[in-house]
């Protein structure tokens, strides 16, 4: 703790305002800040790999329950496959949602984000992107396996991956609003589901439709485009709503 060390720590301020402080104290560009927020969540998630696998295992188990419960006949399973895949994906993505902001609210990270001078909505979008990379994308990647188990043939699998991948983007964003809204509540799991599921209905309808068309070998671009439209709407509006809800929860 000598004074020689002190000199090395003195912050370097290239552009100073009239009082000698950095004129624009936010030195990190918005894109770099979002990259850091994303990277941070990915790093944290890989420190707890066990929690990452849970939604995936849930998805795999739920989809394999149907052949046991309904009928092992592939023709009948193929009929219900889109609905089964989508309901399971919806519930699996819901599982991880509770932890989207929970820990960060507890340890003061959200507080620091909202006081960082960066746009809180932008940082929350980065967090939601990390959430999708950790749940939505893996779900899309294992969906073909589950579809195969439900009797879907090779040609429809690409459509299954595409619709689940795009649909879960919308689901993560819708979920980010309800996760932020339920931050102040202690046992928020059920309320979170009650808020998220009705809002997710459009995603479920178009997602299941796209999957159904893909399985039948028909063109599925129309419902897929509607899913993409929902995702874009989510990207533009959901972070703003989530940021407002987080600000309220910090009060």
């Amino acid at each position: 703790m000598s004074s020689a060390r002190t000199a090395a720590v003195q912050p370097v301020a290239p552009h100073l305002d009239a009082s000698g402080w950095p004129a624009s104290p936010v030195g990190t560009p918005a894109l770099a800040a979002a990259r850091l927020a994303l990277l941070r969540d990915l790093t944290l998630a890989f420190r707890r790999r066990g929690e990452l696998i849970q939604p995936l295992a849930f998805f795999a188990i739920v989809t394999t329950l149907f052949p046991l419960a309904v009928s092992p006949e592939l023709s009948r399973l193929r009929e219900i496959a889109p609905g089964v895949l989508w309901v399971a994906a919806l519930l699996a993505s819901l599982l991880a949602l509770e932890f989207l902001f929970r820990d960060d609210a507890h340890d003061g990270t959200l507080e620091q984000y909202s006081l960082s001078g960066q746009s809180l909505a932008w940082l929350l979008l980065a967090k939601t992107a990390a959430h999708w990379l950790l749940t939505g994308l893996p779900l899309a990647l294992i969906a073909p396996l589950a579809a195969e188990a439900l009797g879907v043939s090779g040609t429809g699998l690409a459509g299954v991956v595409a619709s689940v991948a795009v649909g879960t983007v919308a689901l993560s964003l819708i979920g980010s609003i309800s996760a932020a809204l339920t931050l102040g509540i202690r046992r928020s799991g059920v309320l979170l589901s009650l808020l998220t599921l009705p809002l997710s209905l459009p995603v479920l309808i178009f997602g299941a439709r796209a999957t159904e068309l893909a399985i039948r070998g028909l063109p599925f671009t129309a419902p897929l485009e509607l899913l993409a439209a929902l995702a874009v709407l989510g990207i533009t509006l959901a972070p703003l709503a989530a940021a407002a809800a987080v600000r309220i929860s910090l009060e």
Partner: protein
Amino acid sequence: MDGAKPLNLRDSRAVSHALEAENLQLWRGERQVLRGVGFSLAGGECLQVRGANGAGKTTLLRAACGLLYPEAGRILWDGTDVRADPAAYHARLLYIGHEPPLKPDLSALENLRFWIGVRQPVERSVMQAALERVGADRWSTRAVRTLSAGQRRRVALAALALLAVPLWLLDEPTTNLDAEGQQLVGNLIEEQLVRGGLVVAAGHQELPVSAARVRRLELPLE
């Protein structure tokens, strides 16, 4: 502010930042926590907020950084209401709550990288130097989960050495620290004041800062 950008730090001290709070009234539920609290602070001054448990020290600090909105009264930074442009005001302050905002699963270095990096780009060597300054370099790569409360507090103090912002709002900065650590907090605050910075610190313990720079605010309990 006549357009010419001053290059010399010392010459530019002529204009100083100022933080003022006017008649803050704030309720939490049915209870009125802040009853017409006000203060004014200029560059180079430290406000020590004291008061019994529950007197509203943390509430005042959170209101001062704009996390809480008071029902009445306003907070002025350089004469303008901070609500006019919250992001610009937030970019000029650093708030450390009574729990250091650290992730248990990340190391001290990683925590600082993400926490400070979102605001200002920081080099690893600079972070290492800051951790050395606060005596936390020996455990800089250990997961914060394995550190004691005092060690965590020191890691959070490294943020003070890293981030160049004029306003610090510190909630109980000396809690859990040993005598040397408390002196370190005093030194860091002293340096910030010499630079022309402002510090608002809440806590029960006397801060080891030269008395001439310290102003006091006692919060009454009910």
